[in-house]
């Protein structure tokens, strides 16, 4: 885990803006490495991948499974080796960044940890990450892998992965606004309560994934799954609300954060199988805590500006009292 965390940090500190042709270097490194020698001078072709005629990292016996050409290392001609594409969860027969192997094309199904392990191993045996590698090549390999991790992390945690219904609009009358605020107020109040309590609880559950206690791991998985389901239900509840057009922006912000909560919990539930994705999930969860405060302050300011008086307005009254005089 520390290695992966280190990689992420390394990627940030390296000048990733200079990384062009992402993955190409690693692809080349894997290819070169497999054909040549490992860090200790040993031949790798027989050790790493047995019976790999085209040296693309995908064993000959697996080539038919992916319908790839056993004599062509890059069947779809997109610059990535077939073996690397499979390791990264991409379809080696289709060019382009969106050629995910999973049937639902859901980035959440990618195992980032496995993918990074494959990339690291390949780059290591190719010599790009060996101790005596050229520093420039070494740094570039690290940067490529880091960007790949970040890219997958961002994809996996993109709230757009959660489908939402179309917004139902009401009018901008005072009554319609107060009705909306009344309903959304209770929802936000509950989310706020969850968020206040959750950092500690989520951390405890997250740490459980690294214990030897199978029951604790199951318990954590169930916890994050139940939270995922809970936030899905809340999203459905919010989607069912009729929204005054002038509140659309705030409505979208609330939904976006709910989506982030859903997807973060979903990725956290997969921590045992994909620890790296879990780390992304934790980081993402924390971002919601920071996002929710400006939203509730904005809502309160808007209530004051529009001279509204929602019936269940305890939360807004409190915030109003806190920001009084700003």
């Amino acid at each position: 885990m520390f290695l992966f965390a280190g990689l992420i940090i390394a990627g940030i500190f390296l000048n990733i803006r200079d990384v062009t042709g992402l993955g190409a270097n690693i692809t080349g490194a894997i290819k070169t490495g497999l054909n040549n020698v490992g860090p200790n001078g040993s031949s790798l072709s027989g050790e790493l991948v047995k019976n790999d005629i085209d040296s693309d990292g995908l064993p000959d016996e697996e080539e038919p499974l992916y319908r790839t050409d056993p004599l062509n290392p890059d069947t779809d001609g997109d610059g990535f080796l077939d073996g690397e594409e499979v390791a990264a969860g991409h379809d080696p027969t289709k060019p382009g960044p969106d050629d995910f192997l999973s049937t639902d094309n859901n980035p959440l199904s990618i195992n980032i940890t496995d993918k990074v392990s494959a990339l690291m191993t390949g780059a290591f045996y190719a010599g790009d990450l060996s101790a005596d590698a050229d520093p420039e090549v070494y740094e570039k390999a690290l940067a490529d892998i880091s960007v790949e991790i970040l890219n997958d992390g961002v994809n996996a945690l993109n709230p757009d992965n959660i489908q939402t219904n179309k917004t139902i609009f009401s009018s901008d009358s005072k009554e319609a606004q107060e009705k909306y605020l009344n309903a959304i107020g209770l929802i936000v109040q509950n989310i706020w309560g969850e968020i206040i309590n959750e950092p500690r609880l989520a951390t405890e559950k997250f740490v459980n994934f690294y214990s030897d206690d199978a029951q604790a791991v199951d318990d954590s998985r169930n916890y994050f799954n139940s939270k995922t389901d809970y936030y899905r239900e809340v999203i459905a509840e919010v989607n069912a609300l009729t929204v005054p057009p002038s509140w659309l922006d705030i409505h979208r912000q609330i939904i976006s954060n709910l989506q982030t909560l859903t997807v973060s919990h979903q990725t956290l539930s997969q921590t045992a199988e994909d620890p790296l994705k879990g780390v992304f999930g934790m980081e993402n969860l924390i971002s919601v805590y920071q996002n929710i405060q400006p939203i509730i302050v904005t809502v309160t300011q808007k209530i004051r500006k529009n001279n509204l008086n929602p019936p269940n307005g305890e939360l807004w009254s409190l915030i109003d009292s806190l920001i009084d005089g700003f």
Partner: protein
Amino acid sequence: MVRINEIYKKILKTKPSGFWPGFSVGLFYFGYIFFWFWSVRSLVSFEIENKIFAFLIILLPYIITVAGMALFWGVFSYSLFNFFKKTGQVFLPFFWAGTFVLVEYLRIWFFGILWAGPGALLGSHWTLGTPAYLLANLDFVRQPAAYWGIYGIDFLIVFFGTALFLLAKLRGKDSKKILVFEILSTIAILFFANFFLTLNKLESENNKLVVSVIQTKNPIKTFYEPEELLAGFSEKNKLLKEAASKSNVIIFPENADFSKTLSGFLDIDSVPKYFAGLSQKNILIIDSNKIPEREGLKSKTILIDSKEGAVGFYDKKLLTPGGESLPYIAKIPLLISERLTKNYFVSSRPTFIKGEESNVQNHQSNKVKILVCSDIVSPALARKDSNFDFMTNLNNLAVFDGDSFIEKQLLSMAKFRAAENGKYLIISSNFGRSYVINPLGKVINSTESTGYQILTSDIVPNQTRTWYNKLGDIPILILSFIVVLLGLKTTRSRDF
């Protein structure tokens, strides 16, 4: 009567002879002192619903504590019957008093060792049950603690009691005269000590501070329902705004979690604006938050200047065994019981860690002494970094459900801490009542009931340092040690 006398003699003769009378008295006395163990509500937060199991969980530490403390009183009575045998009777009050002080000092140390856990603060801190506290309401006895602290009071109690006992028991005119002289001397010492303390105590109105306590009723829970959090926070916010209009210093109790909860509503840029908007002038707000840090949980007191932001912090040092730290002695049985019941109520809970920094914090021209909850039991912590102007005690009785028995004991200790150091002491309480205590240890203002409310009072910070504040317990301990050494030269047996 004859029957009681026979039982007493039987107890006295049982080996080790002389030990059992003191031990028996100790069992009753400490059984009474520590009876508040039974009001501990932490079991509820541990989600222990089985009453027999809960009973056993309290029974075990109760027996260990009571017997452990009584052991030292047994040692004391053993020494009375077996040492000082050649001593003239008129000197006995000195030797007995000296012995009692040393035994008490060791007992108080032992409490900390008995209930030590990871990161425990060892020392003569846990003064619970020392007899001086029984006389906390007697100004005449309490006030001179400014010279000799609680051990000095203990010395005088035993000295006076022994002299009275011998006066009633012994015959011989000369001895009686000396004993009467000793009794009168004790009274005279107390009289003059009180007289000198009340001299030059005119308080300057120029230094006056208006201090407000925000008393709360915030239950201890791992997780709060959103409605519960909102209701409690709204109440604290309302009281803070009200107190800000009339106070220089505002003190929350332990577990208030005001700043922490506030940061759940407002972003990092808005929080300073909130505090700045409370008043035109600079107010010192002393808040207490339970903060999870890398090493563990901390009971963190944050000092906030309303215009300048956080100006200092203090992490509680003397953690409560069982509640905040898991004692070594309890670890094995608890872990076994967890295995048996498959209820991991202890090991799954995060434990607290103690702070390292000074408990004296500066704000403008004032130095504030911060004592958080159980810190108040320790005279050593109260006088540590001894140059301060006034004292605060952020109290939290939620775990005892506001039990009045423990509250009274803590109040007695607080009176002594104020008297020992000659400073105003303000107690802000969660689940209990709040108090303002003057530099002589007298309560000058208090809330009438528990629950959310404000207590406002004027205090005068002072730079005067008492003898106890300068020297601590060292003089009385040295005196007691020398007295006991002189007494140990004797060999003659004694019967009563």
